[in-house]
């Protein structure tokens, strides 16, 4: 039997922890469904990021450094706090009265043009802990920076930097009035092996090895746990087990509307926060929706580049198709993307799909399969039933029981089990 060399480069980009990391002496048993990774791996990943792109990942690296690396004379605080309407407007960004007075005419090699910055704030049920009767709603601010032509990022092959600020609060106003608890970053480098690379920053904008999340709240409670770069990021972006580079997830506006009908019934704020209302016919909503649409088109482009035939790509394509001419909320049963179309979810299955959407979409919108791909669900239904209603032995198996982020009631389990059984 012949040993192959395990190179640090390969392992640092792997979904699997390097074998050396597994060698750690007896630790508390890992129970997470989402592989948390380790600081050691994150450090190695960042080291490789520096080697590959020249990006600063030293101990004192900050989000502001990264923004400067992308060629933008903006601080992390400005990116976090400025109104998206200012960020996306070169005029307002350059204004010295009411704007940050940025020199947009000669910004790292070119005039700042409309579309170079994309920014939106929105309701984010995905990041909230649902293992409680009163979930604290999550909110996100997304900023996509097209890197400036003469920037270090551009020279290194990075095309865009996507910054995702995470906030919590009962209302959007309350949430966005505070600070991002954790800021996730994607570096889009389509000509590089992995196409997409990760960074994470803490609430103070300092480089962090791990994001804080409640993916496994059903096992560990609502106290956020650390999920290290890159595993904590890859986990939700189509990479683990899918054997391909990670993908940008499209923003599913419809899911946000779905969720204020169940776990987040108390949320009455505008879900597209910059629309200032939830009236999908209003011009403000249309304007805010257009930003999301633009971002999703770019997500689809990236998905096509990585894996054109994937369910993730189909999901993004479907959202764009549904919303090509309409900003209105579309219910889950009309959002299936199965081929052939007759295999899509049927109206009679709306209730069951609603449960999948509520309990499973958080992960299984982008991890391994999407609940909107009916054949994908049908082919897994038996295994999903095991996960929802495990045997006594399986229930003891770390990471087996689903969903990992909440404890279902016996009634919910029975209803979901019966629904899945009916699919078999």
């Amino acid at each position, binding site marked *: *039997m012949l040993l*192959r060399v*395990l*190179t640090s480069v390969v392992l640092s980009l792997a979904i699997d922890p390097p074998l050396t990391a*597994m060698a750690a002496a007896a630790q*508390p*048993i890992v129970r997470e469904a989402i592989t948390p990774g380790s600081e050691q791996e994150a450090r190695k990943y960042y080291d490789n990021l520096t080697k590959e792109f020249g990006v600063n990942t030293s101990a004192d690296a900050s989000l502001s450094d990264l923004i400067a690396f992308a060629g933008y004379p903006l601080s992390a605080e400005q990116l976090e706090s400025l109104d998206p309407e200012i960020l996306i407007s070169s005029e307002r960004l350059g204004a010295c009265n009411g704007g940050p007075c940025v020199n947009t005419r000669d910004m790292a090699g070119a005039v700042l043009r409309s579309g170079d910055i994309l920014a939106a704030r929105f309701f984010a049920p995905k990041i909230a802990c649902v293992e409680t009767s009163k979930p604290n709603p999550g909110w996100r601010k997304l900023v996509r920076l097209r890197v400036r032509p003469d920037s270090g990022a551009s020279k290194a092959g990075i095309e865009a930097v996507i910054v995702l600020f995470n906030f919590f609060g009962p209302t959007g106003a309350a949430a966005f009035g505070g600070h991002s608890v954790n800021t996730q970053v994607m570096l889009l480098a389509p000509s590089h092996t992995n196409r997409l690379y990760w960074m994470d920053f803490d609430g103070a904008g300092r480089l962090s090895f791990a994001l804080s999340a409640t993916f496994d709240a059903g096992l560990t409670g609502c106290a956020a746990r650390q999920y290290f770069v890159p595993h904590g990021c890859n986990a939700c972006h189509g990479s683990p087990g899918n054997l391909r580079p990670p993908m940008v997830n499209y923003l599913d506006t419809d899911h946000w509307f779905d969720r204020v009908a169940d776990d987040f019934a108390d949320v009455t704020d505008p879900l597209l926060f910059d629309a200032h209302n939830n009236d999908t016919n209003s011009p403000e909503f249309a304007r805010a929706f257009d930003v999301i649409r633009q971002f999703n088109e770019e997500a689809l482009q990236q998905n096509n580049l990585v894996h054109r035939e994937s369910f993730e790509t189909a999901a993004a394509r479907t959202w764009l198709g549904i919303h090509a001419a309409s900003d209105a909320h579309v219910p889950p049963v009309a959002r299936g993307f199965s081929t052939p179309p007759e295999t899509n979810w049927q109206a009679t299955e709306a209730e069951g799909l609603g449960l999948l959407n509520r309990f499973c979409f958080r992960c299984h919108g982008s991890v391994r399969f999407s609940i909107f791909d009916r054949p994908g669900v049908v082919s897994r239904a038996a295994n999903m039933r*095991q996960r929802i209603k495990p045997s*006594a*032995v399986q229930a003891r198996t770390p990471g087996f029981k689903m969903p990992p982020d909440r404890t279902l009631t016996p009634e919910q389990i029975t209803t979901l089990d019966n629904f899945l059984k009916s699919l078999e």
Partner: protein
Amino acid sequence: MTTLRIHPATGVARLGNSDEFFVGPEQPGIPANWNVSAGRFDPFKDATGRVKRQAARFRIFEFDDAGNAIREITLADVTKIEWRVHVANRKGSFFTFNGQRGAETDPPYSGRHAEPPDKIEKPNRGRGQPERRNRRDAAEPNRRNLEIDPGEQAISAPGELELVDNVTAAPIRSLGKIRMEADGRLLFFGGVGQTASSANPAPQIEEYANNDTWFDDVSDGVVRANVTLRDGSVISAESAWVIVGPPDFAPCIGHVVSLYETLWDLAVRFGFAARAGGDPTLADLVAQQTAWQPATNDFAATYRPSFTDHIYPILCRALGAQDVHQSPRADFHATLADWVRLSAPSEARLRAEVFKRIRDPSSTVPDWLNMPRGLGDDFTSLDEFEDGRRDAPSARAFLSLTHVQYALLKAWKEGRFDSDWRFGDVRFAPVPAPGPVTPHGLDGAALENCVGGPFFPGIEVGWLIREKSLYSAAFRFRDTGMTVGPLIFQAGFFSQQMAQPWTADFYDCHKEDHTPDDSSEPLIYMWWTAQRPDDVLPDAQSAHRRWVEPFDASKEPSAQGPDDITNLARFEQMRTRWHELSFVVLEGDSYVEQK
């Protein structure tokens, strides 16, 4: 006419450096060293921390013309029993191990035999590997000096006999001993795990299988018996074989393809002679032979496997691997921990989901993803693929179940099985209570904890075990003397193909990561994790740790990690400290390190 046969037809001894020993398994499902009354394993090490040897016990049975076992023959029944044992170690003079090189011809090794023995056919490995081991050593023209062959040794009264070669120039002369018990049964003890080099100073061990000047005390060979009846007549029993393997460090976990299943597969597919007599297992073998459809590598629809007897034994070993192989996904194989559903006729979808993850042994397309997630006989092709010397690995770069195992699972998937699970919602079926010792039970028990693939080169035996012409009947080899192309079927036939010394491969047969050609992300593949654990649980509440972690501190500073190919210290660590490694035993329903 009275027919006497030795059972097990192939006995299995295991190395150990202690004077203490235990007898290898004698009843299917009951592992070696299992203390029936205590319901746990007895210690695998003695008070000083040395590893106990596993002895192979041989018995003689009388059969009638219908194949029924009439009785076991002991000294109480006859005037005399003479055991004649001939084992040898011919690793030093055999061909270098190089994957499937030698298997491409029928009979095997015909092509390599024609090559100059000192031709360097593996330029990049271990200073260049010649066709034959030790052919770089021009000072050693006498190939006999590279072999350890005590010759045939006979014992006909209770007592012991050392198996020593007084002729060889090899630095190891003893291959173990034989002991005749008071009742006339034979105990065979293999080596003590010794390794030594004939060179001074000894060169570093450089690779996993072919290290010139190095020797070990692994062996195999024939076991014969002559029985003198009360009327003075002498009957020769049908001979048996004995193989010597490394310690089985996880004796309660079977490898997903056991040697028993590999031999069973040969017996079914090639119709080896099998007389059931009253043995229900052999009756099942005959039924499978009858139902086997060679054109499709499948059973006729009339054959219905038992969930408990045929399906569970395959799947439970995959589940057991959880405890000796840490995966990034802690829940890997947990779908299988639901025997109630898996055995329910109504769970067609679940069965289909499990079956679709099983690699098809008939496929000629490399299947990187499916199960078993293990490396295969033609690992060389994967090696060459990764070195850019070929476009893709061969299908056999990855381990597959046997054709019969696959067909059994297929029948189960299709609902053609007996739903006879009776143990409820448990992780594993309980260790069975002991019953009467039977001839075929001895055969099965001996082989079920041996590795039946992949043979690269293997743990106890290599791929020569699949040579059909060697078998006189199901599970039984012909007596020695026949030729297989350029090879003589003689003592040392199987062990000659194995790693030299055994400890080198025993270190390197740990899990490895390999990256499918359309991916940037590696997957982890096992070799023989049920024999040589990758990771172990200190107890049921703790996380895994690397099994060979005690060796890690000796890593060479320039190596990236202890498993790095440049860390040659790993070989010396395993060579000198193998007995310090822990055994994995059953506690509750988990497999944990024996304290």
